[in-house]
């Protein structure tokens, strides 16, 4: 039975991480037109507890994309400098959409495994019920 609860907690860590990733994607998309906004990214790594790999996935700290901000020419913009340029955001909508799709696909795979593990453990419990 411990294998099942272990598997379930690993899978829920996967779903939590993918959900967090999707949240940052949503933030990026919402701020795609915010001047000076840098795209947020998070990294995934395997959790290590007491020197052993647990198999669960953890998210690293939020990092800001250090790519150069595009300079947009619009002299009428309130934030434009003397030359008429202001810094846009470095969010690329196509990248964000691809990232969101990947997160969704991985989330679904986690969910599918979750259901499978639950079915297995209920089959085991059925023996006890007899």
């Amino acid at each position, binding site marked *: 039975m411990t294998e*099942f609860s272990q598997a379930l907690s690993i899978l829920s860590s996967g779903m939590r991480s*993918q959900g967090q990733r999707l949240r940052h994607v949503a933030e990026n998309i919402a701020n795609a037109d915010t001047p000076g906004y840098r795209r947020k990214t998070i990294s995934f790594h*395997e959790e290590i507890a007491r020197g052993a790999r647990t*198999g669960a996935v953890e998210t690293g700290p939020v990092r800001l994309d250090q790519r150069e901000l595009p300079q947009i020419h619009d002299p009428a913009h309130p934030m434009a400098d003397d030359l008429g340029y202001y810094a846009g955001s470095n969010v690329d909508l196509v990248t964000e959409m691809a990232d969101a799709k990947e997160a969704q*696909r991985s989330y679904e795979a986690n969910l599918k*495994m979750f259901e*499978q593990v639950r079915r297995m453990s209920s089959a085991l419990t059925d*023996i006890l019920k007899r």
Partner: protein
Amino acid sequence: MTDMPDLLRLAASAARHHAQRQAVLSANVANADTPGYRARDLTAFREVVGDMPMRQTRIGHLGGGAGAARIVDPGTPGDPNGNTVSLEDQVLRGIEAQRAHDRALTVYRSALDMIRASLGNR
């Protein structure tokens, strides 16, 4: 009749092995997007139990646990970030483990039924 406990023990260790395998596969799926993660799997139950005869000669032989998780050769080259988990492959393996687990439980249950029938308990 004396073979029955052996059969039960074998079925139980098979069920435990496939449950462990499912846990390893779960870790793979959870880490499907972790850079540098290599997909893992358990050694086959056949290799864990060894050849015939299936008699427990020493405590801990049968049901002593499954083989250590080993790194499997990925069929595909993997992602540019070094991750070799293929979700389709993992789901397939998960279904395989689930079916094997069900099979082991069915064997366990019918052996239990036979014992009960012989005791006239039904």
